[in-house]
């Protein structure tokens, strides 16, 4: 016996390891759901027969609906389809208005990702302003669009270092009460539809607007004819804002059960609340989002990015975010007559565009509202309170932004996810599956700094400072565009870096890329080299590389700077671990050696092999 044990065990181990190796997960790209943009033989004229309608307020049984060129032209029980109309059988189904998410941050593919879930309008509560005019222009058109329509606050009113400044791109802050009028007019100029302010007093995490400045923002904003809403997280902050005359709160507070005083004051003032229970559930680590990601009806419409934001978490449980208290507060305000609107706060961790709008309605029902009331909170009510014309209702003349779902969502709210058709501007949105892969860059140039006002590349990559403050370090990076560049170039980027003790592996410098989640990533496989001109404080520096799908330690390469201009060429293949199909950015940094550094960058670009 004993003489065979060794051979037997060896054989078992070898076989076991072979089997193990063969079944271990391999990195495959997951298929992704995308909207078909092929327009051939597609129209925006339909006839939906024998369907129940939720018109924004009530359910109306057994109707026929005529959609003509993107507009609902007729509704009635007796209508008959003409031979040239495309007929859709609506029996056993319910037609609801395209959903309106009253609290989003619409970056990247957000407007397209949300549309697959029947959300046809986003009320954005903080985004990058530079392409706002362009995106907004589309909402008045009834042409085919593979994106939801956007209404936005633009950037939000906050102070230097306050909430909103931590996302890696510069925003316009308010640092004294005198700046308020100018700040508000800048928002109007940038294309904001309303104003959002951040009011987080009495906490040590980050600075906040004072009550006086916040009240001034409300006063000036309303005087300019804009709605003003506020981000708050405590009852005390909510009370201050309600007293100051805020139009709406974009979160419910969950630090304590709402007092009778605040509830009755809110009801008396007639404001609305967008509780964003979906995000509170995520912070409260309820894992509801994880279950949602497993739902086949969700999976069938989910992109890789949506999946990534949906299953991610804040990583720590913060006090003051108790879902049970939040739900109680929603119920208390609602019962007192305060308007509740459905907003998800997507794509913050634990939420995803579109999916979380449905989730929010489910949570509102769990908080004690009826399915019909929750549906109104995501359709007719946000349209009414944000003065959106011809949206959120199904009646003659409204935009044919519609969702046809199986079953009756006014009986069971989860039926909103059982989507049969999504209509945008009367066009049916069809979904096809493709392999997830970043788009190719439209230009290999990342920065020549010729234009004094342009620190944004063709791909909306923004040049910004980068330092370890985001990891609680003490280093400081600053950037400034200067006039004289390499050779006869008209401009360059000056980077100052103070690398200080704090984070164990300190860095400071400049970064270019897309770092605002959800990050899509770009395919750079056609390029072989990253090259740039640089001069500055002599020493060894590093380029860090970033992926859309990567967390943890960024792949890096070092290079040497001298006081004279020189061209550096780095082999992209040597960024060990970088996924070249999902590139999202570079950082040019000093560190981990401590000290003060300064260097000037120019002509940063990819080159082909």
């Amino acid at each position, binding site marked *: 016996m004993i003489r065979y044990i060794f051979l037997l065990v060896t054989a078992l181990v070898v076989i076991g390891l072979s089997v193990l190796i063969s079944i271990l997960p391999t990195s495959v790209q997951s298929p992704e759901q995308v909207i078909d943009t092929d327009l051939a033989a597609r129209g925006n004229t339909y006839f939906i027969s024998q369907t129940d309608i939720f018109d924004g307020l009530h359910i109306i049984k057994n109707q026929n609906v005529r959609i003509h060129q993107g507009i609902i032209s007729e509704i009635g029980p007796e209508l008959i389809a003409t031979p040239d109309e495309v007929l859709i059988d609506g029996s056993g189904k319910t037609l609801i208005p395209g959903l309106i998410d009253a609290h989003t941050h619409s970056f990247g593919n957000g407007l397209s990702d949300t549309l697959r879930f029947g959300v046809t309008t986003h009320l954005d509560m903080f985004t990058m302003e530079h392409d706002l005019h362009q995106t907004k222009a589309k909402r008045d058109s009834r042409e085919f669009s593979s994106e939801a329509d956007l209404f936005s606050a633009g950037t939000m009113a906050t102070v230097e270092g306050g909430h909103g400044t931590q996302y890696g791109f510069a925003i316009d802050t308010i640092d004294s009460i005198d700046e308020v009028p100018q700040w508000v007019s800048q928002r109007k100029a940038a294309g904001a539809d309303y104003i959002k302010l951040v009011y987080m007093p009495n906490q040590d995490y980050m600075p906040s607007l004072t009550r006086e400045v916040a009240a001034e923002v409300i006063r000036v904003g309303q005087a300019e004819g804009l709605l003003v809403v506020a981000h708050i997280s405590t009852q005390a902050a909510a009370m201050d804002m309600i007293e100051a005359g805020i139009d709406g709160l974009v979160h419910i507070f969950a630090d304590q059960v709402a007092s009778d005083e605040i509830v009755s004051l809110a009801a008396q003032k007639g404001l609305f609340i967008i509780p964003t229970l979906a995000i509170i559930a995520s912070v409260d680590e309820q894992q509801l989002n994880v279950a949602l990601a497993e739902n086949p009806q969700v999976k069938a419409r989910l992109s890789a990015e949506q999946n990534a934001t949906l299953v991610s978490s804040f990583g720590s449980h913060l006090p003051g975010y108790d879902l049970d208290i939040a739900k109680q507060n929603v119920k208390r305000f609602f019962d007192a007559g305060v308007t509740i609107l459905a907003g998800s706060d997507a794509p913050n961790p634990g939420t995803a565009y579109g999916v979380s709008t449905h989730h929010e309605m489910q949570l509102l029902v769990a908080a004690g509202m009826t399915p019909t009331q929750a549906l109104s909170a995501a359709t007719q009510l946000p349209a009414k309170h944000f003065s959106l014309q011809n949206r959120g209702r199904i009646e003659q003349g409204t935009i044919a932004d519609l969702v046809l779902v199986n079953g009756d969502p006014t009986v069971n709210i989860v039926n909103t996810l059982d989507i049969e058709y999504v209509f945008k501007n009367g066009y049916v949105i069809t979904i096809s599956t493709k392999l997830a892969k970043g788009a190719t860059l439209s230009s290999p140039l990342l920065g020549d700094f010729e234009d004094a006002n342009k620190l944004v590349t063709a791909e909306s990559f923004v040049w910004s400072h980068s330092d370890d403050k985001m990891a609680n370090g003490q280093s400081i990076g600053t950037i400034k565009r200067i006039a004289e560049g390499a050779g006869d170039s008209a401009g360059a980027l000056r980077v100052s870096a103070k690398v200080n003790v704090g984070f164990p*592996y300190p860095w400071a410098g400049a970064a270019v890329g897309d770092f605002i989640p959800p990050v899509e990533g770009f395919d750079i496989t056609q390029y072989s080299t990253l090259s740039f001109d640089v001069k500055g404080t002599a020493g060894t520096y590093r380029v860090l590389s970033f992926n859309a799908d990567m967390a943890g330690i960024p792949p890096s390469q070092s290079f040497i700077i001298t006081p004279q201009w020189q061209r550096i060429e780095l082999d992209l293949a040597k960024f060990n671990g970088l996924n070249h199909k999902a590139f999202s950015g570079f950082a040019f940094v000093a560190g981990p050696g401590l000290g003060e550094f300064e260097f000037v960058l120019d002509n940063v670009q990819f080159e082909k092999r």
Partner: protein
Amino acid sequence: MSRVFQSFCLEAGAELLKAFRAPEFIIPTLGMPVAFYSLFAIMIPGSNNNAAYLLATYGIFAVMGPAIFGFGISVANERDRGWLDLKRAAPSRGVNYIGAKVCSTLLFSSMSLAIIYLVAGFAANVAMPTATWTMLLFVHVLATFPFILLGLCIGFLCNGNAAVAISNVFFLGFSALGGLWIPVMVFPQGMQTFAHFLPTFHLSEIALAVSGAPGQRDVSYHLIVVAIMTLILLAATMLAWSKQRSK
């Protein structure tokens, strides 16, 4: 079956049987690395981002235990009890005695690795091409050898009690300072430099390079250092072996 092979199989079989009959040694040895890996790569919030990185380093950690403890303490104990003297008088070859221990150690290292890989692949969502998994396994298994030599050295030089203490010093010191638990790069500069004198650092760098972890690595440099360290350990082991024989 040749006589030599047969006698080797008997020795190796006896080694394994001994281990299976005394699970109080083998279970903690196999269980601790995976417990540590689960803690640092899965349970601590945010750590999941580094699960693939830590797999490379914890794989080295996983093979150290069976090698250092299997040899260091068991050889020292057997020597204390006069078992080695008896072995020398027995017809079986000395090589068989060592060879059997090496083989059983490799088997236990492999089991330890298999458990960590299972946790990494299915609980920490580490995904790599099959060729990379295979290469990583290869590197991890081979990484057992320097530690086997280290364990032998300890076993030949120390008595049973001292071996426990010395093995622990090497096991814990090499793991922590070599960056197996926490990446070296978060250490202060002095400790980062010191890590270059430890085999664990170089082995983990090789494993990191194989697994495609981010960062610049000169694999040939690490291979050369590991080879030199292994040779030094081999020389030390042979010296210790001859010293304990001549007693």
